[in-house]
């Protein structure tokens, strides 16, 4: 079952979307406990300093955020609605954002929520004191001041208008903490303790095993949640998560399964399994190290991207890996994304692979690199790193380039990418939560802290700066095209692969949960119910 959405252009305020919701409106049943499996583990419980779904899936339901992706329409990339606010608006110049905070919300410990709590939360996120981690600080670099004119109004003033601000506020990591907790227990208390305003109250955390929550009766979204509680069970092995759903030890897994796993489940259980699928705001990319010869030569990099048959690969790989869609630098269904006509003009996306490979060989010859061989640094993770690694090596073989692979655990992989920078060519990932293209593509700037290719491309920096301060969607789109062509085609700084494809087969009795473009999104679980 796929949820199609209308494509609308994004402005500084969230656009309300109509969703062509395929699922027939059913009356949710109350009660029951949802068991789900999580393929990662919890570092700390403080959303502000963590970046893994291993924390989001079990912990997110305890908390609320200021605004969130519309739970009824999560596959939209531009539909944001209030969570603890009753409304939000922005000034005409796009520099002042006002959030009206609801006055009927209480934390699980009974403390009423006011704008002061939201301010304290955002102060921690945006202006963390010395020694306090905030992984989200960067996203809010445009924020100038946060003020509370009264108990239920929050005003954020920006240094410049930015189309990336509202999507950043909607990020699921921005848990609202109580000012009282921050004041009395300090900024590290939430790493090990929970007190939120979410749909569920914390019950138990057993390290390495599970987290459980029970229904919070004072929840501010009326009538919700439907579940009595949930249990998030840790299961790092994909095979175990799959069999857990098959044997009904769990109803759902929220990250995603490979295609064969979906087929096996459906074959074994028929209509007891419902499958939701959609594009995923993650992709793997090949990063040539520009400081290592011959990858400083744009011709060599272009040859490497021209060798890759993305259209053919999409058909084959979508049967064995969690990748599918061929698209440019922007998430495929977002208004800023390239259409097929624009895309197929970019080298590497040509539909004629023979022509493309001939050009690749010509470029290699011209660069004097006809016998090129190198080592590909990869991450020792099966899906989809290993599969794409094998595929890419075979693609490059077809233009006469010999590649050996060095797949290493996450630690050495990150170390080589970020610290040592000693690799020749590496597979890297860009995986984000909220679809926020202008922020998401900032990874491709030479100046970005998470860009490991070691180049500096001033024209691209300028384009991005212009795009992030532009209020005009049409202008943003035009700049994005130039940015894309330069990145993938002319300079081939980065060699794109396919966009990930999220496949969530689950027990059919799990209702109300809708797939989003990211495994980080729509995980507050207040709308989920069990049809048992």
């Amino acid at each position: 079952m796929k949820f199609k959405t209308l494509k609308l252009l994004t402005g500084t305020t969230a656009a309300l979307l109509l969703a062509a919701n395929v699922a027939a409106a059913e009356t949710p049943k109350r009660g029951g406990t949802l068991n789900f499996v999580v393929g990662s583990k919890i570092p700390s419980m403080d959303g502000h300093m963590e970046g893994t779904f291993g924390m989001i899936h079990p912990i997110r339901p305890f908390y609320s955020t200021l605004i969130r992706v519309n739970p009824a329409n999560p596959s939209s990339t531009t539909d944001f609605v209030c969570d603890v606010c009753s409304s939000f608006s922005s000034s005409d110049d796009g520099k002042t954002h006002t959030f009206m905070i609801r006055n009927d919300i209480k934390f699980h410990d009974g403390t009423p929520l006011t704008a002061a709590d939201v301010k304290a939360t955002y102060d921690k996120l945006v202006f963390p004191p010395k020694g306090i981690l905030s992984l989200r600080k960067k996203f809010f670099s445009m924020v100038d001041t946060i003020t509370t004119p009264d108990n239920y109004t929050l005003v954020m003033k920006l240094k410049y208008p930015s189309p990336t601000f509202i999507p950043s506020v909607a990020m699921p990591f921005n848990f609202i903490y109580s000012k009282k907790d921050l004041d009395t227990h300090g900024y590290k208390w939430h790493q090990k303790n929970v007190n939120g305003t979410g749909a569920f109250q914390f019950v138990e955390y057993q390290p390495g095993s599970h987290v459980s929550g029970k229904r919070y009766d004072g929840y501010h979204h009326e009538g919700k949640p439907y579940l009595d509680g949930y249990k998030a069970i840790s299961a790092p092995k994909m095979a175990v998560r799959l069999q857990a759903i098959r044997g009904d030890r769990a109803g759902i897994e929220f990250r995603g399964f490979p295609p064969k796993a979906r087929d096996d489940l459906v074959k074994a259980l028929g209509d007891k399994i419902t499958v939701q699928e959609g594009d995923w705001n993650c992709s793997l990319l090949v990063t040539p190290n520009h400081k290592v010869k011959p990858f400083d030569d744009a011709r060599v990099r272009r040859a490497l991207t021209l060798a890759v048959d993305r259209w053919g690969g999409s058909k084959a790989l979508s049967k064995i890996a969690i990748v599918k869609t061929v698209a440019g630098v922007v998430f495929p269904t977002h208004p800023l994304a390239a259409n097929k006509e624009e895309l197929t003009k970019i080298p590497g996306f040509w539909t004629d692979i023979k022509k493309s490979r001939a050009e690749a060989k010509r470029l290699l010859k011209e660069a004097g690199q006809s016998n090129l061989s190198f080592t590909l640094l990869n991450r020792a993770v099966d899906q989809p790193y290993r599969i794409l690694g094998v595929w890419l090596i075979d693609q490059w073989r077809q233009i006469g380039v010999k590649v050996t692979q060095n797949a290493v655990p996450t630690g050495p992989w990150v170390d080589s990418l970020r610290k040592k920078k000693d690799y020749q060519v590496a597979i890297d990932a860009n995986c984000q939560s909220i679809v926020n293209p202008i922020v998401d593509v900032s990874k491709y700037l030479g100046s970005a802290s998470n860009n490991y290719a070691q180049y500096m491309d001033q024209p691209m920096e300028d384009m991005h700066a212009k795009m992030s301060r532009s209020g005009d969607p049409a202008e943003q789109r035009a700049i994005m095209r130039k940015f894309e062509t330069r990145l993938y085609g002319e300079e081939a700084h980065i060699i794109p692969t396919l966009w990930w494809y999220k496949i969530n087969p689950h027990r059919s009795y799990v209702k109300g949960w809708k797939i989003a473009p990211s495994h980080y999104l729509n995980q507050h679980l207040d709308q989920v119910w069990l049809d048992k």
Partner: protein
Amino acid sequence: MYKYAVKRILLMIPTLIGAGILVFMLMRMIPGDICEIRLGGTGLMVDKEQIDICRENLGLNQSLAKQFYDFAIGIATFNFGDSMWTGRPVTEEIAVRFELTLQIAFMATLTAVIIALPFGVISAIKQNTWIDYVIRLVSIAGIATPSFWLGIMIILGLLIVSQMVFGEPWMMPIQFVPIWVDPLANLSQTIWPAVAVGYRYAAVVVRMTRSAMLEVLREDYVRTARAKGLFEKVIINQHALKNALLPVITLVGIEFAFLIGGLVVTEQVFNLNGLGKLFVDAVLDHDFTLTQALVMMVVTIFVIVNLLVDLIYAWVDPRIHYS
């Protein structure tokens, strides 16, 4: 005997110190950095500033000498610190998993001994008959089968067979419940890994029992007993088995010690939240404090079990001199 015991106990100290130095060095030689993995692992935007805060908080910016000093003092005073990954006390992280691991180790040992002793003895007595061959083939197969493969086959087999028989596929519980809380749930989870591990374990013990038995059967006193016309059964019970048991006890002891923290692959396959899984995670996460504490614990258990085995050995077999 007393002197021997004291000497053996004293010999444990250099082993523990050596293991401590080894794990401390190994962990710092592995390329990577817990802060980089945790904050930048999935290609997120992370400034060096944030990484530095994280490193500072975890004490990673201190000199190696200071870090080693803290580690050594911590071990000596039984203060193992907090896990760098979760921030929880290491003892708490380990305690949660220890129970499960210990239970599996006991069950696997029990399975192995119950299967292995009789078959090993039979195999030796009936040496070079078809019974011997079958037992040996089956036991070598136990050693030769990769345990993760066996585990996956067990899980899948249960799902498919149960669906054919009952209409609903059955999967073992994937979450640990202590045996005194719910014995049924506990056993229905732990029995499978115990069997999978027990099979390989039994295979090793069968081979040891067989060869120990063969050796003893050729000793002069057994030959003498035979020559005296004692019944085969009596010989085996009274003379041979007792002496053949010694190397078997050694093996069982060492294997048992190995199971604490050694079931890395099996725990992954059966989703057991045990020490083996914690161990691998800790190493891969660059969680220095946790890995160090785990190594020290496992090594301590190993040397203590070895000590006990040796003492039993010395006590049972008077031929051993304690030089």
